[in-house]
């Protein structure tokens, strides 16, 4: 059941109607039942994985809090980590590691064999695993109190708006909201409605209309001409942004309608000026998770300069691998890890700070770094890294002017999004449109609604991040 399906609209209207009529405790029960139904609509068998994670971490949380010995706390935490990461390793990475190992030993002349696991990837496993891990780790660190209410905790793990593609919420933020009665304020309805509307625009108009161009270039690189490759280069950046930011907006919007605030996952990422800035704006819930639970425990920037570079690279490598069990995701992580290292080396460790408030320089940096990000998306989208030289060859040697439709799609749907975000960036507004005067807001509502109905892509695409 995708957010962009008629089924989901019926589902949400039914859930929301019940939600408004029920008392707070029954609301939670309804949300939990709805969340399990939502997940079971993909594959009911994998509900058992969520239930295992929920039970293990609920008991682990209580256990860590109850025992006094640090060693016992650590042992319980290890059980939680092994259980959660074990499920992730088996269902997401087993085949990848076995295949990689076999091809490595094969290249050394050693023929080994191992059984492949015939299992599909459970939707959203990476998201809810990271979410539940943060719960037990926070309790272990003494930053969070374990909840005694199993229902609240189960809802925290399975809360349907963010279950399959985030944002990866922290227990310290979401659990208190689930454990206390919600009051739906006028702001919730206004902001939530706009987030849903704009989220659907991002997904159905921006992302889905660009998907065919990206698919053509990256699935058949040898059949794409130079102009198509160039269009695909930019289209990929807008497609993945529209897709993932669209999902996050819809998730936050429907949650906000229920009076529950989810964290902002994107903050105008294509206005980033450098890698460090980019990761403060892109998939914020993952980047902050990696910072808090991986980078800092590895030592962060507390050690030597080289230890910091190593920590950055390791964090981003694992961040890349989190996206999928394939080498091009690892390479994408390495690409950003190296970029973060170089940026740190040049501008932090050697103190080469540019002059502040230089608008022209800022624009150049944004444009330059946007292109750098696009190169990263090339690595992210390409199924085989060996196809990169083919794309380059097509770009340089096989030029034909036949990418007009893709170029126009970016101009018509992508550029207006950037313009609105540019306004928000300059005025430091979280929601640009909601800060405008009424007549402009109304015009924007009309344009967005009309575009959604008239320009929505004929082919409905899956959300890209569901596969992670």
């Amino acid at each position, binding site marked *: 059941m995708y957010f962009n399906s*008629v089924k989901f609209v019926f589902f949400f209207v039914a859930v929301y109607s019940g*939600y*408004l*009529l*029920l*008392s*707070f405790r029954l*609301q939670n029960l309804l949300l939990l039942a709805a969340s399990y139904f939502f997940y079971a609509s993909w594959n009911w068998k994998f509900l058992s994985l969520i239930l295992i994670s929920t039970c293990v971490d609920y008991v682990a949380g209580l256990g860590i809090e109850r025992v006094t010995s640090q060693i016992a706390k650590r042992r319980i935490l290890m059980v939680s980590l092994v259980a959660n990461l074990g499920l992730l390793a088996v269902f997401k990475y087993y085949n990848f590691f076995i295949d990689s190992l076999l091809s490595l030993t094969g290249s050394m002349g050693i023929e080994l064999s191992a059984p492949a696991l015939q299992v599909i990837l459970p939707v959203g496993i990476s998201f809810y695993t990271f979410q539940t891990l943060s719960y037990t780790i926070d309790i272990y660190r003494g930053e969070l109190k374990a909840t005694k209410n199993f229902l609240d905790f189960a809802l925290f793990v399975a809360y349907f708006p963010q279950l399959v593609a985030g944002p990866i919420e922290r227990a310290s933020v979401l659990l208190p909201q689930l454990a206390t*009665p*919600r*009051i*739906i*304020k*006028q702001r919730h309805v206004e902001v939530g409605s706009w987030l849903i509307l704009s989220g659907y625009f991002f997904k159905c*108009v921006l992302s889905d*209309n660009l998907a*065919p161009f990206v698919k053509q270039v990256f699935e058949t690189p040898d059949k794409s001409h130079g102009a198509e490759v160039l269009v695909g280069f930019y289209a990929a950046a807008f497609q993945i942004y529209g897709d993932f930011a669209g999902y996050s907006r819809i998730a936050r919007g429907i949650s906000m309608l229920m*009076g529950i605030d989810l964290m902002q996952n994107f903050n105008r990422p294509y206005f980033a000026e450098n890698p460090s800035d980019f990761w403060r704006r892109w998939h914020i819930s993952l980047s902050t998770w990696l910072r808090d639970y991986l980078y800092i425990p590895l030592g962060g920037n507390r050690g030597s300069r080289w230890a910091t570079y190593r920590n950055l690279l390791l964090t981003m490598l694992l961040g890349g691998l989190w996206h999928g069990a394939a080498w091009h995701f690892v390479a994408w992580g390495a690409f950003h890890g190296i970029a973060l290292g170089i940026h740190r080396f040049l501008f932090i460790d050697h103190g080469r700070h540019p002059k502040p408030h230089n608008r022209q320089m800022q624009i150049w940096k944004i444009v330059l770094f946007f292109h750098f990000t696009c190169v990263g998306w090339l690595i992210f989208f390409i199924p085989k890294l060996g196809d990169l030289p083919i794309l380059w060859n097509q770009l340089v040697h096989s030029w034909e002017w036949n990418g*007009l*439709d*893709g170029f*126009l*799609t970016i101009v*018509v*749907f992508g550029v207006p999004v950037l313009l609105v975000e540019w306004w928000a960036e300059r005025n430091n507004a979280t929601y640009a449109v909601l800060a405008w005067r*009424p007549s402009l807001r*109304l015009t924007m*509502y*009309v344009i967005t*609604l*009309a575009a959604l*109905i*008239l*320009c*929505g*892509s*004929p082919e409905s695409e899956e959300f890209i991040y569901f596969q992670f």
Partner: protein
Amino acid sequence: MKNSSIFNFEAVPLSQLVRHVTRWHLAVFAVCVATVTVASVMKSRWLEYYEPAQEMHYQSLAMQAEDPRLFFLGSSHFMVGVDPRMFPFEVVNLNHQGLDYRLMNLILQKNLARWPDVDAVIIELDPYPLFADTVATFGNKVTLGRLGLDADEYTKSVKSWCSHKLSGLTVFQRPSLSPRTMLERMTPTAVVPGFVSSDLVMQQTGEERAKFHMDLLKNFNTFGENHAALNEMILTVHQRNIPCYLVVTPHAEGYWDALSQDVRERYRDVKQDLIAGGKVQVWDLDQDPALQIQTHDFRDGDHLNKSGAQKLTASIIRRVEDSGVCPEVRTARKP
């Protein structure tokens, strides 16, 4: 009821609401409703688009003055698999995406009289038309007129209407104002009546297509009516002393296994009954090794692309010649 959250909305009694705030919310609501209404009407009235080659009404008009020797009738499998241009004589290929046998029967009854001299009628044999409900899938408006049928020629059941309206089953031809679709429409392309070729390769696997079909077919209970319509078609053709052949087009690996057991078994029974009855020849080209169909010949799990269509059509031509159906046109009447 005090705990009920519907009363937990920020308590602002209507009487205390500032007048302009009330107006603002009413204005937003009214404008949104008006926008949705106007845009929806625009979309359904003015943006609807249909490729001429896929429109049977166009196909039959294009064929009106001709004198076809073979009359092909089928669903999308014939639309993308049988290229009329390859035959050394005139053929007519009437087809439509998602066509069920009830509608095929109506089309046959209506059009067979127009071409009394056809040497044979070749009908597609496939599980999809045997279980499908075309009108419920695509909607009355999209379907009948474009099939060259009048609205009163097909009495749609209330169930069909409801299935379409409530489940939103329309699965294709959604109009859009995106640059891609607008440019596509503005780009003139040569239209071959009754045939749509494609260079795409395996956009969906056999398993994915079968799952998609099963997802659609679970809404319908039309097997009995479609089966009766298929038998009536064969009878109608025989009553005119015209040979009738049924052709099974190729399906990619995984398609048959992903169909439900019930659909597979009922389809197999129908096929075996037809073969055992002896009134009609079934040309099963699905797993025919002579056809040499490979993965790259499929547009998706159950549709052929350009190269696949060439192989299938060539095979049908050979079989037509071998069966002696059109002896006087063995030498090309029309290159």
